[in-house]
């Protein structure tokens, strides 16, 4: 208990310092940061949950994208006939399923032919954008879009409600709920316990008679579903139209966010906020200072190194 408190304090402190440095320097708003935090948290959870079962899911990116395709298909099918109360939950389910299916491919390969899931999830990231491109360049292209590869805009019923006049949408609530749920399930339930056993030592799990393959598969499905939910939220809460290049890099940033906090869901909220601040800073730098968009990656790398260094120093001095 003491150890986890100390860890939480350490990463909290590191993140606070970094954020305090960041906010005054560049002109960004908490509002933008919260909007950006949402997909990072969910993509982070997509890494964290499988990671606790000893899996490396680098496929948040692909799961996110495939889910947006499934969500858009659902919108195009039934979007005009159902009202928001039913449509949004339906779209959420579509997103969860889309992500889970995409992760399920890797999961199936892992438990049947023992293909390493890090490899398969990574490679699948290159496939789902092609599927998306096929649809928006082809059957789903909006005739009134001056030939741009975008789908028809989502109907109002398929848009996530926002808070007051801000851009902040319901997604952040869902992200926080998902993180708390993930924490509670992993740390306090029997299933979460078996996941941790499998992640800690699969041979020990096998010897204890646990269904290792099933646990591995389900953990990966859940991860994929969470990335899928991120895709659903991004496309219904921010973009409201399907086009290529939505949320490019979110999956990888989620990966960073999760590793930064050792796959602990609650701390993931903090690291995601930090990374979101940096990411938004990048947009503002590009617009205001005329810097290339890639400069944000330099910034991100610097801050990450700082966070890791500070945390390393703190935990080491405690350990000695």
């Amino acid at each position, binding site marked *: 208990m003491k150890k986890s408190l100390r860890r939480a304090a350490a990463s909290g402190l590191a993140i606070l310092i970094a954020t305090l440095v960041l906010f005054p320097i560049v002109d960004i708003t908490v509002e933008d940061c919260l909007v950006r935090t949402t997909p990072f948290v969910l993509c982070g959870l997509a890494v964290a949950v499988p990671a606790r079962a000893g899996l490396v899911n680098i496929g948040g990116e692909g799961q996110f994208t495939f889910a947006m395709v499934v969500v858009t298909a659902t919108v195009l099918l039934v979007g005009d006939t159902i009202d928001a109360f039913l449509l949004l939950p339906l779209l959420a389910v579509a997103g969860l399923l889309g992500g889970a299916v995409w992760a399920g491919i890797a999961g199936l390969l892992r438990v049947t032919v023992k293909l390493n899931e890090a490899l398969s999830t990574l490679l699948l990231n290159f496939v789902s954008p092609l599927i998306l491109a096929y649809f928006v360049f082809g059957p789903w292209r909006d005739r009134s879009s001056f030939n741009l590869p975008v789908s028809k805009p989502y109907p109002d019923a398929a848009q996530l409600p926002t808070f007051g006049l801000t851009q902040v949408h319901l997604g952040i609530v869902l992200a926080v709920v998902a993180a708390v749920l993930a924490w*509670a399930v992993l740390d*306090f*339930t*029997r299933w979460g*316990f078996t996941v*941790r*056993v499998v992640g*800690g*030592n699969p*041979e*020990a*799990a*096998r*010897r*204890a*008679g*646990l*269904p290792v393959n099933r646990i591995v598969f389900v953990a990966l499905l859940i991860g994929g579903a969470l990335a899928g939910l991120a895709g659903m939220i991004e496309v219904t809460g921010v973009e409201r139209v399907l086009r290529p290049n939505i949320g490019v890099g979110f999956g990888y940033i989620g990966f960073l966010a999760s590793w930064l906090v050792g796959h602990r869901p609650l701390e993931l909220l903090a690291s995601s906020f930090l990374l979101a601040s940096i990411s938004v800073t990048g947009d503002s730098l590009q617009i205001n200072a005329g810097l290339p968009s890639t400069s944000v990656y330099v910034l991100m790398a610097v801050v990450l190194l700082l966070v890791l260094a500070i945390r390393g120093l703190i935990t080491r001095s405690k350990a000695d």
Partner: protein
Amino acid sequence: MLEECSGRNAPPAALETRGLSKRFGELQANDRIDLQLHSGEIHAILGENGAGKSVLAKALYGVNLPDEGTILRDGRVVVIDSPRKARALGIGLVFQDFRLIPALTVLENILLALPDQRMRLRRKVLTERIAQAAARFDLRIRPHARVRDISMAERQQVEILKLLLSGARVMILDEPTSLLAPQEVDALGRVVSELRDQGLALALITHKLMDVRSMCDRVTVLRGGVVQVRGVNPAGLDDTKLVDAVVGRRLPQVRSHPRQPVHDPTLAFQAINIDVEAEHGRLALSELTMEVERGEIVGVAGVSGSGQRELAEVALGLRGIRTGGLRVLGRDVSNGRPAEVLEAGAAGVSEDPLATDVVPGLTVTEHMALSRLKLPTRRLGCDWRALERQVAALPEAQILKIAAGGRQVTTLSGGNVQRIMLCRTLAGDPGFLVMAYPTRGLDLANAVATQDLLLRHARDGAGVLLMSEDLDELFLLSDRIIVLHAGRVVACVDPEVAERHDVGSLMLGLAA
């Protein structure tokens, strides 16, 4: 304390420690140890598990730095802060579990250890050097065999040769006889006496009196990190004196155990003509037929790699069989998965719990949940406190004094981990027990307590399949001993009448 004075003009010891102390947390592992290793002598360092022998060896080899005290090499004070430094000073250590790379050949393993290699590997030259040295020290070494294909005894000889070629003049052997069959021990004895005659200083770390008697010129006894007997010729001490020095008390005797007739006719374990494949399609067990009745302890003897591990894994459903049939407590588990076999009522302690059973990051209580004990739930979560109380109430937990429930298992010592595994296996009274080396890593008192627990469970009707590298333990506990050699049962003997030496011959594949 017993001491022997050395002459005033004697040459300085090859390796000497003065007041060497090392503390780990609460544990004073070594307490002001004085030790002198002389060239041309074999010096036994005798003690129970946890007496501080390995800590001392590691200090001499630079694995851990002592807190206090000095080390002298040929009379000069030296600081040994790394194994590299130790090797540079001509000090070598043969680890108990060896440190060879199985996928490489013997030659390649030796190459790795040599300091004077250039970029280009000169295999021919080295092959010759190996052949010369092997002939000189009477070692049987096949330089081009892969390490994974050679026996434990051969691996040990490779380790020894490796140290010799890298210029070691002081050689420490950690529990060198623990993985060897009796005849192989004799061969080792000849090798070390040859080394002694060539002027090396040898230290032999052991907990077996027999090793001291058969191989050593001097003995130092450690108990609780303190020297009890210092550098005495063992011929001058009788067994009782030595044992007293080692354990500091009389040996507790395991009760004799007249076997109770058990009325349940269901066999605890039955294997009918099974073939079991190991890696690369080789047969690890062939045409093996055996049974374990309820209430019976069946010992399995064999030099390591004779199929014991595979038998233990098959009995727990961890490894599939190619042909034949398997039943555990009456249930057909020929195609069994671990969960089914556990469900049928089996439980087991594995050969290497640190690798196959310990889950990093989990506590003692969490490990206990992976057993026959039901993990209690409260509302939606798990009730760890209830489980902890349940564990604390187990007789095994009290007898084996397992560590506090909140401790992380990875922070515990090997003996502690083993006791947790034993307790977890015995919890809930399984009807069939597969015990692979149950007393490995335990000190004497706990080993005896464990043996006692096994007898008690057998008396209560459990069938026990017992693997042990300690023939004494097999003879003490078993109702029957089956001897495995190269994956076949070569004999089934009655420990009441069989001779140890005959069992040793059978283990090595010689006719009894």
